[in-house]
């Protein structure tokens, strides 16, 4: 009887303030979508880091023919210069940072290059002599790029030392900025949600003043009087959370799995299963939201 009665009271309350209920649902939906987007972006970043930082290399390009760099004044890198560089890399304090070193000759570079770009209009203007030989160095700790740079940069025969990580940093920067933006918007929307839930509960309590007055009079407990209001907020917020889960799932499915995932395949992407991982967080936030708002609002109605 009790349970059924509370349920019917909640139903009445939700229906009576239908437009407010809908607005609570929408605001929690939008705010939690931003929260979820922020979390998913961070998941994407850590996924990229996990995958890429293992593959990241330092490329030491050796002088090709006709380079204008001062270190290349002597023309194409000679066998002696290459040996000298190998010797530097073999020094104990440098070698300890290095996981592996591969040497890529001009010809190997040309083969790889022609695989990728042979269909471009400018390809015919190039020859194997335009390629650079290079060392591909993999570090045990990708952050230690500077050590190699200090040792090799400016050596005769070295045209350029390039850290591949720097190629990815702008991407991470963009993703991190996007996260910040999401978090900021989520914050604003969450505030709006709290205020809206508070107002909804207050309205609901006002419109049921007669009922609650009688309840108090006949000796209903505070908890019993407040429970329907609390659950009203909680239900609306939870529906918002479920909607945001659906929205994020759809977003990841359409934008990432079906679109980005098909067109740019070399990147490891977050998947819809990651959405399920953050789902409990979203529902938790929604519940917390409703709980805080209810407690704040209802403390004013707890006077017996």
């Amino acid at each position, binding site marked *: *009887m*009790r349970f059924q*009665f509370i349920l019917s009271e909640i139903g009445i309350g939700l229906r009576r303030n239908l437009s407010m209920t809908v607005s609570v649902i929408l605001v929690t939906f939008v705010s939690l979508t931003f929260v979820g987007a922020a979390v998913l972006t961070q998941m994407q970043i850590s996924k990229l880091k996990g995958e890429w930082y293992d593959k990241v290399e330092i490329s030491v390009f050796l002088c090709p023919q006709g380079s204008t760099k001062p270190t290349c004044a002597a023309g194409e890198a000679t066998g002696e210069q290459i040996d000298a560089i190998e010797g530097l890399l073999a020094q104990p304090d440098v070698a300890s940072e290095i996981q592996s070193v591969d040497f890529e000759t001009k010809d190997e570079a040309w083969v790889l290059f022609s695989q990728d770009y042979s269909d471009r209009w400018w390809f015919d203007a190039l020859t194997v002599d335009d390629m650079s030989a290079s060392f591909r160095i993999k570090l045990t700790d990708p952050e230690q790029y500077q050590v190699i740079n200090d040792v090799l940069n400016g050596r005769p025969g070295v045209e350029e030392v390039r850290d591949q990580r720097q190629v990815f940093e702008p991407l991470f920067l963009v993703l991190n900025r996007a996260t910040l933006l999401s978090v900021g918007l989520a914050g604003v929307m969450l505030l709006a949600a709290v205020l809206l839930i508070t107002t909804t509960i207050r309205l609901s309590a006002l419109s049921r003043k*007669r*009922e609650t*007055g*009688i*309840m*108090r*009079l*006949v*000796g*209903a*407990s*505070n908890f*019993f*009087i407040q429970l329907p209001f609390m659950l009203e907020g909680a239900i609306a917020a939870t529906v918002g959370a479920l909607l945001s889960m659906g929205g994020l799932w759809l977003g990841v499915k359409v934008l990432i799995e079906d679109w980005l995932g098909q067109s740019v395949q070399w990147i490891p992407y977050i998947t819809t299963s990651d959405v399920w991982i953050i789902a409990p967080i979203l529902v938790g936030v929604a519940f917390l939201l409703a709980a805080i708002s209810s407690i704040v609002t209802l403390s004013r109605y707890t006077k*017996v």
Partner: protein
Amino acid sequence: MIRLENVSKVYARGARPALDDVSLEVERGEFVFLVGASGSGKSTFLRLVLREERATSGNVYVAGRNLQTLSNWKVPTLRRQIGAVFQDFRLLPTKTVFENVAFALQVIGKPRHHIMTTVPETLDMVGLAGKEKRRPHELSGGEQQRVAIARAFVNRPSILLCDEPTGNLDPTTSLGIMRLLDRINRTGTTVVMATHDDEIVDQMRKRVIELSTGELVRDQSRGVYGSAR
């Protein structure tokens, strides 16, 4: 059943007290009229007994509890022993007669079978058998007040407080309501009724407590409305 010891109630600091050093006792099963002009403190008295207000000084005892020291979370238990009826009925317009009365039991968590037997019994007792499915606006004033009394009495309280229950009713209807309250009183329920209705008070010849500007000026068994007439 109800005992006031030197009770004063001041609503705003510096204002004239709504109740001024009132001491009185109402025994179990008594029927008491509370009379006096508007603003004499009748409503404050009822609010103190219901613990809607706390006395500024003195002690209020209801059903063996000292309300001055009663903690907030025990107030609902106290109120389950008190029924209250008001001049404006305070019914829920969207609920039927049956639902209005059942509401009082539902919100204190009574089981369904208990409600299903008690509510019809009570409605029968107040003379509303057959009108269970009506809504308040389909009833006359007297019938609405009967619903309110049924709701106040359905949990068999030991005290029934009535704040001008006949204030909105014509004399004939009022008489019916008084008969009903009298019957409830005969079941052993203590009834305290605040009223302006001199005819009723004179007719019933019950104990009369008169308040004037917050002071107890008369406590007379088998009394009449006007004291000095």
